[in-house]
C-alpha cells in the first residue's frame, strides 16, 4: 500500500510556475544555418570545403537518442526544440517558466582546429542572440566557447559580455585535460570579471575514452559515465585551487545529476585530510568549497521512485543552495510536467525555482 502511494506521489510534481529553467536546449543549428553569422573567410572556406553540409552532432550526445529527445516532444524532423514555437508550446508555457537559459550543445565546442572552433562558437552565439533571444524575452543565453584555446575563449566572452541576455559561459564536461588545470584559468577569470557563471554541461570531445578503462560499447553506458566525468571535474576544480584563484567564480554543473554528491563529499573530504599537504592552498574541506561555489541543475534526478531515498539524499547533501531548477528540455528526464518531485517540499522548491538561480546568476538577478 505504501509502495502504491509513494509511486503515485512520485508521479505528481510540485508546481514550477514562475521558475527559472537553467538548462533548456534549443536544437543545435545545422551548420549551414550559421553561414550568415560567419566572417568571409569562414563562410567561403566552409562552402568550398563542404563543411556547411556536415552534421556536427556529437557522439557524446547523438541528437536522436531517446534520452536526448522525449518522444512526446519529437517533431517530424526526428529532433525536438528546433523551433521557437515548439519551445514556447512545450517548455516555456506549460511549466510556467519565467526565464529559461538556452544551452546550445553544438559540435563547435569540440572541433580540432582552435580557430574553426572559435569561429563556429561565435557564430552559434550570434545565431542564438538573433534567432532566439531577440524573439522571445523569456529566453536567456549561454556563451558557448571551446575550452581548448583559452585565449580565443576569452575573446569570445569579452565580445559577447556586453549583451546582458547572455548570463553564463558554457563549456563541455570532457575536454583535453581536467578543467581545473591552469591552462583554462583565463576563461574562468574572464567569466568572473563579467559576472558570468561557468556552466559545464554533459558531453565532450571524446578525443580520449570517456572512462579510464576504455571505450564503452553502448551509448547508454557512455551516458552513465558522464556523471563519473563530472566527479573528476569537480575534484579537479577544487584541487587545483580554481576557487582560491578566482574567488568570485560560480560554476554550474548541467545535466550532471546530483545524487552522487554525498558519496563524493564523503570520500573527497576524507582523502583531503590525509593528503592535503599536496595541495596546501586547500585550507577547507572540498565539500565546503563545492557548496559555496558550485551549483547543479535539477535534471536528471537519479533516484528511485521511492521518494524517501531522494529526501534522504537531499539531507546528506545538506545544502539548500546547491540545486537550480531545470527541465533539461527536450531531453527525456521525466514524464509530463513532473520536473520537480514532491520530495523537495514547497520551501526548498521555491529556492530551487527562483532564489538559487537568482543568487547564482547576477545578470538575471539584475533585471528580475
Amino acid at each position, binding site marked *: 500500500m505504501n509502495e502504491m502511494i509513494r509511486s503515485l506521489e512520485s508521479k505528481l510534481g510540485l508546481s514550477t510556475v514562475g521558475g527559472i529553467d537553467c538548462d533548456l536546449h534549443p536544437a543545435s543549428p545545422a551548420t549551414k544555418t550559421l553561414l550568415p553569422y560567419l566572417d568571409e573567410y569562414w563562410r567561403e572556406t566552409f562552402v568550398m570545403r563542404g563543411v556547411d553540409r556536415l552534421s556536427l552532432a556529437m557522439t557524446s550526445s547523438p541528437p536522436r537518442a531517446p534520452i536526448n529527445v522525449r518522444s512526446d516532444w519529437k517533431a517530424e524532423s526526428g529532433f525536438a526544440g528546433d523551433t521557437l514555437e515548439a519551445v514556447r508550446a512545450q517548455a516555456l508555457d506549460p511549466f510556467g517558466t519565467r526565464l529559461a537559459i538556452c544551452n546550445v550543445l553544438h559540435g563547435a565546442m569540440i572541433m580540432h582546429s582552435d580557430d574553426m572552433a572559435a569561429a563556429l562558437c561565435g557564430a552559434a552565439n550570434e545565431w542564438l542572440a538573433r534567432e532566439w533571444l531577440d524573439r522571445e524575452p523569456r529566453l536567456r543565453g549561454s556563451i558557448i566557447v571551446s575550452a581548448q584555446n583559452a585565449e580565443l575563449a576569452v575573446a569570445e566572452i569579452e565580445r559577447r559580455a556586453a549583451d546582458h541576455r547572455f548570463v553564463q559561459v558554457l563549456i563541455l564536461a570532457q575536454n583535453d585535460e581536467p578543467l581545473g588545470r591552469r591552462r583554462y584559468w583565463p576563461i574562468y577569470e574572464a567569466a568572473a570579471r563579467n559576472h558570468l557563471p561557468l556552466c559545464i554541461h554533459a558531453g565532450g570531445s571524446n578525443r580520449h575514452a570517456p572512462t579510464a578503462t576504455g571505450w564503452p560499447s553502448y551509448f547508454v553506458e557512455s551516458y552513465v559515465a558522464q556523471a563519473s566525468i563530472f566527479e573528476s571535474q569537480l575534484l579537479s576544480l577544487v584541487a587545483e585551487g580554481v576557487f582560491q584563484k578566482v574567488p568570485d567564480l560560480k560554476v554550474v554543473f548541467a545535466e550532471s545529476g546530483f545524487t552522487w554528491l554525498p558519496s563524493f563529499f564523503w570520500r573527497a573530504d576524507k582523502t583531503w585530510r590525509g593528503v*592535503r599537504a599536496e595541495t596546501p*592552498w586547500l585550507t577547507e574541506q572540498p565539500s565546503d568549497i563545492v557548496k559555496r561555489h558550485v551549483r547543479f541543475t535539477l535534471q536528471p534526478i537519479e533516484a528511485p521512485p521511492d521518494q524517501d531515498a531522494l529526501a534522504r539524499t537531499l539531507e546528506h547533501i545538506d545544502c539548500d543552495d546547491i540545486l537550480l531548477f531545470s527541465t533539461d528540455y527536450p531531453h527525456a528526464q521525466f514524464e509530463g510536467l513532473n520536473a520537480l518531485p514532491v520530495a523537495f517540499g514547497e520551501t526548498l522548491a521555491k529556492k530551487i525555482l527562483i532564489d538559487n538561480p537568482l543568487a547564482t546568476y547576477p545578470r538575471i538577478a539584475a533585471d528580475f
Partner: protein
Amino acid sequence: MARHVVAKVDELDIGKSKLVKVAGRDIALFNVKGEFFAIANRCPHEGADLCRGQVVGLAESDEPGHYRMTRHGELVRCPWHGWEFDIRTGKSWCDPARTRVKSFDVSVAKGGALAEGPYQAEVFPVSIDEDYVIVEI
C-alpha cells in the same frame, strides 16, 4: 594532577618521538627543536599510534602553485591516514575544533630538583646531575 618523570632529556633527539606510559595512559612525547611536548598517543580516527607518525612541518600556500613549508617539525602525521596534528596543542590541522588529541603540560627539570617535589619517577632511577622530562597528568 600529578607530575611524572617520563624520560631523560638526552634520550630524545630533536625531531624524535617516544611512547611513554603514564598513569595507565599511552602518551606520545616529542622533542621539537629542544622543546618537549606530550599528546595522547592514540589517533582519534582509527586508533593508530601517533608516536610512530612522521614529524613534519606545516605545508602552506598563498595561492595555488605556491608552496611554503613553515613550523618545521611541529606537526605529526598519523602513521596510517596521514592526518596532521599540531604537536604543541594536539589539535588536528583539518578539523581543530572536533578532531584533536589531549595535550599535556611538559616541563624539564634537573634530577636534583626532582627530589624535592611531588614527582613520580615510575620508570627509572633519577640522577641528580641530569635533565629530565616531566609530564603533568
